[in-house]
Structures are given as C-alpha cells and as structure tokens.
C-alpha cells in the first residue's frame, strides 16, 4: 500500500516552471529522502504534499485519497521546518498541543498525547519552557514533538537538522532513525547532507531542476547511478571523471582507452540495453576508493597536491599528467605526502561509463554484487 503517490505533478510560479512532472511513490512506513542541488524544488515538492502550495497540475494521493484540493490541516501530514517555526509566545506544551486544541480534542486526550510525545523525545522537563529559553537541539525536538502529537500518516521534514552543530546532528540523526522505527509512519525528508541521506533513507530521490533523476535505495544510487549527474551527486568525496574512448566491443564487455593512462586499456561490463560503437567518446567515472590499493603495473600517474587524513581514512587530491584533477583514497597509516607522484591503477570492474548525454552505459561490479546478494 502506498501512503503518498504523486502522479505527473507540476508546479509553476507564474511563468516559471519549478516542478516539471514528478512521479513518485512512498510506501507505508518508508523513509524517503529528497536530495538535489539548491533550488531544484525539494522544498516546493514537500510544500505541495502538505498543502502549503497548490499543485499546478497532476495528482496527489495520500493514503489512497486524492488530496490535491484538501485543506492543508486535513491531509494527515505534519511538517517539521528548518527554522523550527515554533510559536514563540507559547510554552512547549502549548506548542505541541496547538493542533489538537484547534481540532477541539478532549483535554485528557490532548494531555496524554503531549506527555507521550514528550517522553519519546525526552523533553518532559521542558514542557513549561518558552522556545526562546531553549537550545537549538531542544527546539528541534519540540518541533518534532509537535508533529508526533498530531499522529500524522506522513511526516515531512525540510532540512530539519541543518541548523544544529555537527555533534548534535549526528545524535539527532540517530534518534530520528529510532523514532522512525518506533512510530513506523511514512517520512519524507529533505537534506543536503550526504551522510543523512545515505544512512537514514530506505529510498533516495535525486532531483535536478524540478525533475527526478533517479529513485533507489542508497546503495543502488551509489553503485549503479543511472547517469553522470547522480554519480557525481551521490558520494563524498565526489566520483572522479576521466575522458576516454571506446577501442573495442566484445559481447558484454567494452574496451576503453584513457589518455591519462596510456598503457592501460579498461575492460568494463556493459548494461544490456547500452549501445556502444568503437571510437565513441565516453566519460569514465571512478570513485576515490576504486583505485587499487597497491599500485603495480599500469595506471595513472598522479602528482599529489593535498592529503586529508581523517584518521580512519585519508584522501589524496592530485592531478594527472594531463592536468585532470583526481581524488584517491589512501591508507591513513601510510598516506602519500604532497608533491609525491604515485601510480594509481584503476579497478576496471568498478568503473562507470557515461555517454555524451550523461547516461550510464556500464554495470559496475558493485551493482552486480548487490544484485547477487539480493537474489
């Protein structure tokens, strides 16, 4: 059963098309994360789901009912805003109970639900405080509590943790995941944070310019991006991109020459649907961790500029002989130092190939293994 369904949903502000036809399903209890560059329409999409913005065309179903023209307060959704948007003149308890009081719920019921939500979020001792007397993290909890009290079918979060400091962010991230397990409601979550997206999502929706680029599980998107945009957007540090040319096709395998690594011909498995010709220009994508650890034999010569050692892992930023920037993962115990020239040999099986339009041509080993594990 799907809790939220969007069918060819569009939104225009005057002459500006912001959402250009989005189809999406969130199953009951699913944690869906929207990611995408700033201005791609993530917030607008959330606001349309909860009813703060009218849908220009298309259909929105929540719990199998058409909600396109239903009042925002009657959709069974609750929103948590980035700015928390607490009512400054009300105490925490009043903030949390406001929706129920508006709906004229019986007092005992209101008290019970506020108390329960406060217990879940461990803010019982704050119930009589005003928002201005609390820390950012506490306000965030109250904002979430205000949503929980309404017992909505669907929770909507618009970058809820982006105003918190790094440590609190990690803590709240874990608590939100726990909360999701506990309540089991459908949640739709907008974030700019790679880690939040990868760790919390059942399903990530990558948006660009008002269109969906790809929908899938975090690992799906990581191992088998449908196009170059998704490949570059998911993963941090970013995937490396190199120019290449097809030198031969044999069955499901394609051979690619990369000018930066003249003595190494890459052999990459193709997608079944992909059409490739000899001589065609392609872009080769390799994640920083998919260079072979002990460089023996042919590879790319990389002059290292900067090394970031994070303790557990290290990333080396450098340039190839042709001046192409490259990021390599390195051992943190024996990292290269800047100025050093290293040979990075490419792990063919984990390469991604993209055609000139940015569509993916290859299946990487990661994707194959993922598929095998699922089967």
């Amino acid at each position, binding site marked *: 059963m799907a809790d939220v369904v969007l069918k060819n949903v569009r939104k225009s502000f005057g002459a500006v098309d912001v959402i250009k036809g989005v189809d999406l399903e969130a199953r009951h209890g699913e944690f869906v994360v929207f990611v995408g560059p700033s201005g791609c329409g993530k917030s607008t999409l959330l606001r349309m789901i*909860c*009813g703060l913005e009218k849908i220009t065309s298309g259909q929105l179903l929540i719990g199998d009912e058409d909600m396109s023209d239903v009042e925002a*307060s009657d959709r069974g959704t609750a*929103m948590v805003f980035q*700015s928390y948007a*607490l*009512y400054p003149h009300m105490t925490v308890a009043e903030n949390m109970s*406001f929706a129920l009081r*508006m709906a004229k719920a019986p007092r005992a019921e209101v008290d019970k639900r506020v108390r329960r939500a406060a217990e879940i979020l461990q803010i019982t001792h704050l119930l009589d405080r005003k928002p201005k007397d609390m820390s950012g993290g506490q306000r965030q909890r109250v904002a979430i509590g205000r949503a929980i009290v309404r017992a909505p079918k669907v929770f909507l979060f618009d970058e809820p943790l982006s105003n918190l400091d790094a440590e609190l962010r990690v803590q709240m991230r874990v608590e939100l995941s726990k909360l999701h397990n506990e309540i089991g409601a459908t949640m739709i979550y907008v974030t700019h944070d790679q880690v939040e997206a990868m760790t919390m999502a059942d399903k990530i929706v990558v948006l660009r310019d008002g269109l969906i680029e790809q929908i899938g599980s975090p690992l799906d998107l990581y191992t088998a991006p449908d196009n170059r945009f998704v490949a570059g957007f998911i993963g941090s540090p970013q995937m490396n991109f190199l120019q290449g040319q097809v030198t031969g096709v044999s069955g499901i395998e394609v051979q690619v020459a990369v000018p930066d690594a003249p003595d190494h011909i890459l052999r990459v498995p193709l997608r079944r649907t992909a059409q490739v010709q000899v001589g065609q220009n392609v872009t080769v994508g390799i994640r920083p961790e998919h260079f072979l650890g002990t460089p023996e034999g042919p590879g790319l010569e990389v002059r290292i500029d900067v090394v970031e050692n994070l303790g557990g892992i290290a990333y080396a930023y450098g340039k190839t002989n042709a001046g192409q920037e490259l990021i390599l993962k390195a051992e943190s115990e024996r990292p290269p130092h800047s100025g050093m020239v290293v040979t990075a040999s490419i792990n063919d099986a984990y390469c991604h190939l993209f055609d000139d339009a940015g569509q993916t041509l290859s299946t990487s080993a990661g994707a194959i293994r993922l598929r095998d594990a699922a089967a």
Partner: protein
Amino acid sequence: MADLPMMPAQRTRMTTSFFRKHKLLLMPLAFIAPAFAMFSLFVIYPIIQSIGLSFTQWQGIGPKTWVGLNNYRMLFNDAVFWTSLMNNVYWLVLFLLAPVFGLFVALFLNQTVFGIRLVKSLFFFPFVVSQIVVGIIFAWFYDPAFGLLATVLEPIGLDMPPILSDETLATFGIILAGLWPQTAYCMILYLTGLNSVNPEVIEAARLDGAKGWQLLVKIVLPQLRAATFIALVVTIIGALRSFDLVAVMTEGGPYNSSNVLAYYMYDNAIFRYRMGYASSIATVLFLIMNVYIVWFLMRLWNNEKGTR
C-alpha cells in the same frame, strides 16, 4: 627636586586606577550626563515651574500673586473645564480605534500583490502630512455648502448637518479627522511588526488547522505585542495632547463644545493672559498623562527584567 616630576605621574596613575576601578559605574554616568542636563533644563525645570505657576495669579507680565489652590477651585467649578475633560475622554476612547484600524490595514497591506507598493505609499500619505493640513482638508470635506461630503450626500437626498458648527457633532468630526493620520501611524508600527513575524510560523499554524480569525488572535497578534504596546501608548498620548486639529478646525467652538484641555489651556494663556489658571489646567493634564506614563514605564521595567 628630583622627586618633583614623579608627583604628577603618580597622581595620574592614581586617578586612572580610580577611574578604571569604577569604570563600569562612571562610564554610563558620563554618557547619560549631557542628555540628563538638557532634559532637566528643558523638560523637568519647566514642569516644576509650571506647577508652581498654577498656585499664582499672573498675567504674563507684572507681579505674580500667590493664590494657593484658588485656581484649582475655580477650575472645578468651570463648566468649560468639565466639557473639555469629557471631550478628552471621547478622544481617548475613540482614538483607540486607530490601533484596531491600523492593524487591519497593515494586515491588508502585508500581502504580496502586484501594485501593493503604490497602495502602501497612499496609506502612508496622511502620516506625512502635517496635522494642520489634515485639519484644513477635513474642514473643507465637512463644509455644508461646498464640501465633498455634502456634494456626495445631497443627490441621495440626505441632509447634511453642519458638522463643525453643531454642538454635539463637532468633537466627533475632529476626532474622525485625527483618526486618519493616527491610523496611518499605527499601521506603520504594525507593518514593521508583521515584518518580523516568521512566515514559517504562520505556515505551521495553518498546518495545525488555525485559520482566519483564530490564526490572527492566537498566532499573529501575540507576536505583535510590542507593536500593540507602542501603538497604544502613542495613541493615548496623542489623544490627550490633541490640540492642533481643534485649533485649526473649530478653535474649541461652537460655545466651547469641542474644546479639549490642551486647547483650553492655550486659550487661557495666550488669549486671556491667565497664566496661573492655564498652568493649573496643564497640571491636571500632566497628572492624567502620568497615569499612562507610569504604566508605560512599569511595562518597560518588567520587560527589561524579563530579558535579563
């Protein structure tokens, strides 16, 4: 002799260290001193002088005679004083409509609709115009022979009373004129207040099911408390010191029916040379205002304590 140059050096060190020790106390005092001196000279001293004057009989020149409470005794037996006081009460009560109207105009103007800037500047207009001009415009407007109001009402067959020369209507005619710029003033205060309301809070309230009247009363108004407070203070003080409109539109007439304390005081001082009597009116007005000023200061005091 060799010690001598040491002396001043030592003394400066001593004074600087004294100054340093008490810096937190001295600096604020030093900053307040000039303003306090001016305020004492031009506000507090005249108030005291005026109160003193109210116990004398004086024609502006010549000798002052001490008459004790005589002026006040006369005042309380003066029908014009009571009319003026009553009119001030009307001003006060009806002027409180200004914050209400101001709020609604501000809510209306706070939308983002095409052309709202032009409409806004039109609403600012009466605030920019001098009270004197407002008075003259309204006097023309009310003119029973050629005024706009008469011109509009006549074709409908309604008879136009001569508002400003009608004993019962004159005060209300002036108050209406006063409400116009006062509403604009309150509107500006509320517009500024609305600017600082987080739109996401309003959206959250909409999601929580508040709409229309409830949204206004339960969410928007509480966040406009600061603006409401200032609007009330300014309006009350404005009503009590109403003077220019009365002076321009009726000079207190007909037969003192539209007089107010401030104008009656002016009338006694400037046209009848009864400085002592005028001062006693001023003192009564001052006492009435003090009620509000004390209220205002107490609110400020409590707020300060709250933010600490």
